[in-house]
């Protein structure tokens, strides 16, 4: 039985565990129908032209995780930003781990999607926000919606600044021979509220994993949301991340994606503007080798006047790695005075590495400032010689140059400890032991 059939037939078993007499269930069955019609995306679709899931889908994935996997904090401490105090939402093989988590309902809800989806007191919130900006046309998003049951639920009320950064962690233990998980996150950031979130998916062994994640973020008037995704997984881990962000007027939302590892990593990042004077920031550093693939598929939909969006993606590709950057900026007729900027710079370290870059601008307003730039290059030889002539060995000079190349993105990380962590990760990826800043 192939994975699609397996998923479709397991929906009946899934229904036994949930309330089938709810509006939510209608949403699920609609979503399942869409997945059934469309199936998994293939390379025949323009949006998946460069990324094939075929080989990954051949694994015999378990789709319902076991409930009894446990891990000890000391074994996974290194994956957390342990230098500072944070809220933690930790999931092991898709199941919430209260033992490793640190949640709250005090002045802000930082808790579980499973509670939000089932408890009556959250019904109104779920009715208002759940699946409201996720693309119901997209087959993988639909698949997630059909089975959505666990993940992070974050609701920061009006004028509240979240007390601490929030870490959302998805571990897979390898207790299953091959595991498919579908986390679903819902994040609502109220008027004038602020929050910082770090999300990470981490496999703790070498068994195949497929994560199909959906995150919906609602940034209300004048709110500030900073979201950081750390993708530094093992070579058997695959991730499709579907993130949807709706922004109201004067809000400021940023997503930084650090893609340093994994087999196939696909990021579908979508911003929708629903008010004036919005600022959106999409930044990323991709640093991969071997046969890894990282595919960034971004969309910023400018629908309202006087808004800004800034995209800056840096990619460094070694070995047989493949990078894809497809950045779409859509400016509707009403969105006058839009300022949309997109930059995508790539360095190919090896002759066998590939980058496919495609900016797409669709502009229907006439008074806008839109720019995009894409570069593909090798390391600057003259800079290498300059550094070497000062006594910096080739490997370190290369690392310093690559660090400098990604610095624009690192600089805008607002959590200092996270900035230090990312810097360290880059150094270790490049195999050097040098401090990049003084």
């Amino acid at each position, binding site marked *: 039985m192939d994975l699609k059939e397996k998923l479709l037939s397991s929906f009946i078993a899934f229904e036994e565990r949930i309330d089938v007499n709810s509006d939510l269930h209608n949403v699920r069955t609609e979503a399942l129908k869409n997945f059934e019609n469309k199936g998994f995306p293939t390379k025949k679709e323009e949006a998946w032209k460069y990324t094939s899931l075929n080989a990954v889908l051949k694994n015999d994935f378990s789709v319902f995780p076991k409930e009894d996997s446990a891990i000890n904090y000391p074994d996974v401490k290194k994956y957390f930003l342990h230098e500072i105090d944070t809220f933690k939402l930790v999931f092991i093989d898709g199941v919430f781990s209260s033992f490793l988590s640190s949640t709250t309902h005090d002045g802000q809800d930082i808790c579980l999607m499973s509670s939000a989806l089932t408890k009556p007191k959250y019904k109104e919130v779920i009715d208002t926000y759940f699946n409201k900006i996720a693309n119901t046309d997209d087959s993988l998003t639909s698949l997630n919606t059909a089975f959505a049951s666990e993940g992070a639920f974050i609701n920061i009320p009006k004028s509240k600044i979240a007390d601490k950064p929030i870490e959302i962690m998805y571990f897979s233990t390898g207790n299953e021979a091959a595991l498919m998980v579908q986390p679903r996150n819902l994040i609502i950031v109220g008027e004038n509220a602020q929050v910082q979130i770090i999300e990470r998916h981490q496999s703790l062994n070498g068994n195949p994993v497929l994560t199909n994640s959906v995150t919906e973020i609602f940034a209300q008037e004048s709110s500030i949301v900073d979201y950081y995704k750390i993708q530094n997984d093992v070579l058997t881990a695959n991730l499709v991340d579907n993130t949807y962000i709706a922004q109201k007027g004067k809000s400021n939302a940023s997503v930084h994606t650090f893609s340093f590892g994994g087999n196939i990593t696909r990021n579908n990042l979508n911003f929708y503007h629903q008010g004036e004077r919005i600022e959106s920031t999409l930044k990323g550093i991709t640093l991969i080798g071997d046969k890894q693939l990282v595919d960034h598929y971004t969309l910023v939909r400018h629908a309202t006047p006087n808004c800004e969006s800034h995209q800056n993606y840096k990619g460094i590709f070694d070995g047989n790695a493949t990078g894809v950057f497809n950045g779409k900026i859509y400016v509707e007729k009403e969105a006058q005075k839009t300022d949309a900027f997109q930059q995508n710079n790539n360095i190919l370290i090896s002759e066998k590495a590939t980058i496919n870059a495609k900016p797409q601008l669709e502009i229907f307003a006439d008074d806008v400032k839109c720019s995009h730039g894409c570069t593909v290059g090798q390391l600057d030889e003259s800079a290498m010689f300059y550094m*070497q002539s000062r006594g*910096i060995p080739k490997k370190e000079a290369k690392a310093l*140059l690559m660090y400098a190349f990604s610095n624009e993105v690192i600089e805008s990380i607002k959590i200092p400890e996270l900035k230090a962590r990312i810097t360290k990760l880059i150094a270790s990826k490049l195999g050097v032991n040098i401090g990049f*800043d003084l």
Partner: protein
Amino acid sequence: MLSIKNLHARVEDKDILRGINLEVKAGEVHAIMGPNGSGKSTLSSVIAGNENYEVTDGNIYLEGEDISEFAPEERAHKGVFLSFQYPVEIPGVSVTNFMRTAINESRKANGLEEMPANEMLKLIREKSELLEIDRKFLSRSLNEGFSGGEKKRNEIFQMAMLEPKLAILDETDSGLDIDALRIVANGVNKLRSENNAVIVITHYQRLLDYIVPDFVHVLYNGKIVKSGGKELAYELEEKGYDWIRSEN
């Protein structure tokens, strides 16, 4: 200190150096002059180990050791320093961070511990004062947006930090106004000692008023065609390079 024997080098099938012989002793300043295209910058690049140039014959010895096959960083660790004619801009790497990495890599290669942070800061303060460099300048990205003069002053600052045995100054005077030239030359002169040597590569005699050479060599067509004392520089200035061309 430096001994170059019968050095031939080329870049992309084009022979540029055609048999250079040069002896530089500790404590000496040598000037290498010559018209454009005579091979001056190639010579400095080849001594520093630029891999874009292929050494086809001859050897370079530093304190008796053949460094012809050494990587640029190994030569730097042995005490070779090249002040670039066109210093490279490296966005995202601060001057301070660059210097710290360079010094510690050299120390590591020479079996020394990393320099403690306070010592490093003291050294930076001392050397930046020598070159009259504003401290704010040091946290800026290396050479990025620096004026021509700032770049050159920064090169000599790096030289001061690294304290090389052999410093090669490639057209350090180009792009400098008279005040900057004085500061740079003053810096170089203060760094001179019995134990190090300087090679000044220049098109004009002007810099040699400030950094006074013990020997002047004229490079033409990839060969040293004339050598003499500092008066040779004046003679060249007076007669022009046509004088050399007509004789060769």
